[in-house]
């Protein structure tokens, strides 16, 4: 089991693996390191002292119930919001303090597939997929079109490049979003709720696709989900969030065998039985 706080003292070097000075054991390279992350929305604390390290080439699933803070954590990793305190190192750069220009360069190493796909509704499937290429590279039209077809082929959607997003099913939208996320061959892929709103068969296909992508492109993949089956199928490691704190980080077996009551509640879909204070309940009802 991985202990929640990772006090890594070594420095990262390029390559898949690196050595520590202490025992010369080969440890995986850190791609993401989150240290003491705290976030507030107004006065409400959303994330509290999050420490997490994600290694190169692994699939890390961030799991938790509704309101656990997993979406906020993902938004931090994408650099969309700034934390109250703490740091987030992605590929060796602290994204909470780097310049906008450095962040722009870093984004070409990151791909993101949003929960609802977030495809641009005014563009065709092909235009959606190739947008990052057009913005970040000076490739000619032919090369861009070939690369677009290649990635659409990868997600089993070749021949769909001229359709509009409104003409696609939910599963197809997610696959197009995935093709757009990997068009730049990023080192890091984020996938928000891949199974949400999909039937079990399409959901399983998407899981297979994520595993295939990891194998084919040796990507580090961070998946945010609350779907247990999907998480257990694709994860190398799982981090369980609850009320803005990390309950546990470990392999699938470690999570399954955890003796934490909250984790077992989540795994076995048991409702929380929080005691109700009668006075507070009355105050809430009367609005006083």
């Amino acid at each position, binding site marked *: 089991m991985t202990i929640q706080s990772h006090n890594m003292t070594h420095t990262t070097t390029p390559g898949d693996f690196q050595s520590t000075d202490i025992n010369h054991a080969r440890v995986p390279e850190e791609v993401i390191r989150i240290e003491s992350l705290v976030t507030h929305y107004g006065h409400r604390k959303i994330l509290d002292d999050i420490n997490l390290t994600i290694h190169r080439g692994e699939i890390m699933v961030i799991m938790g119930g509704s309101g656990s803070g997993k979406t906020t954590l993902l938004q931090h990793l994408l650099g969309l919001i700034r934390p109250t305190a703490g740091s987030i190192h992605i590929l060796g750069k602290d994204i909470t303090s780097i310049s906008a*220009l450095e962040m722009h360069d870093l984004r070409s190493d990151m791909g993101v597939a949003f929960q609802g796909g*977030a495809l641009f509704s005014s563009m065709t499937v092909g235009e959606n997929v190739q947008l990052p290429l057009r913005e970040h590279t000076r490739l000619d039209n032919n090369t861009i079109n070939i690369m677009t077809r290649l990635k659409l082929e990868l997600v089993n959607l070749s021949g769909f490049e001229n359709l509009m997003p409104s003409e696609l099913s939910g599963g197809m939208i997610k696959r197009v979003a995935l093709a757009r996320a990997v068009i730049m061959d990023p080192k890091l892929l984020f996938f928000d709720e891949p199974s949400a709103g999909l039937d079990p068969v399409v959901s399983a296909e998407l899981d297979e696709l994520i595993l295939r992508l990891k194998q084919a492109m040796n990507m580090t993949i961070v998946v945010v989900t609350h779907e247990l089956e999907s998480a257990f199928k694709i994860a190398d490691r799982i981090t369980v969030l609850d009320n803005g704190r990390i309950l546990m980080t470990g392999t699938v077996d470690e999570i399954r065998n955890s003796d934490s009551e909250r984790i077992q509640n989540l795994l076995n879909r048991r409702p929380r039985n929080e005691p109700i204070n009668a006075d507070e309940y009355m105050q809430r009802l009367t609005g006083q």
Partner: protein
Amino acid sequence: MSSMMDRQGNFGFRRLIESVGRRTINGIEELGYIFSLFVASLYWLAMGKWRKQPVRAATTFKEIMLIGIAAIPIITVLCFAVGVMLAIQSIATLKTFGAESKVVIGIALSVTREFSPLIVSILIAGRSGSAITARIGTMHESQEIDALRVIGIHPVRYLVTPVLLAMLVAVPCLTILGDFMGLFGGAVFTSMELGMNLTTYAARSLDVLTVDDIRQGLVKSVMFAIIIAMIGVSNGFMVRGGAEGVGRSTTRSVVLSISFIVLADMIFTYLLNR
């Protein structure tokens, strides 16, 4: 009893003052936001190339097509109709003084200085300003703006600057078209009513009009273009609350744009005619 009523009266007055204060602060905040968006879009226009994010000419032309070219038929018809209406009213009024022939002066000056920029801008605010708000608002709600950010595309550079540029090109061009069509509408009715042929009408109009009259209309149209673009995009970015929020912001965008256009028109007309 009376002290209780006094207390209720004081409480109501305090709530009124609070409400006015809150609305004033929100209004100032919004003006600040609109101004910061305007400055940011100029920044991306000037510095985009050095920030590896140039403003794409193709995107700007696409916006010009949507805002400008597609609006040509409706601008043509409406400005022609306004010209006809002005001619009808002017001839009817001037007839009481036996000065119908002076109708050319009234139409020429009022169309170029006032009606053409005003009608064109109100039409573009209703047609394109609302569409811009709805588009950006929907993009915001469906995480498309977040998607732009994570792809490494600054939303102001991609969504605001092209709209601002397109407005700055399209609205003055449409105003010139509006000038022509307004004058033409006036000429058609005048020729039918007073028997003045179109060549004479055109020659008299050109005698009356100066470059300053056309410039006055164009200066106004540039200001109106900025108002429509910035109110349209800022309301789009401020959309909250799904489809209902998009609808609310779209309506708000049109009402605010038209209100600001009319107020700005009044101020500019006063300043430019002193």
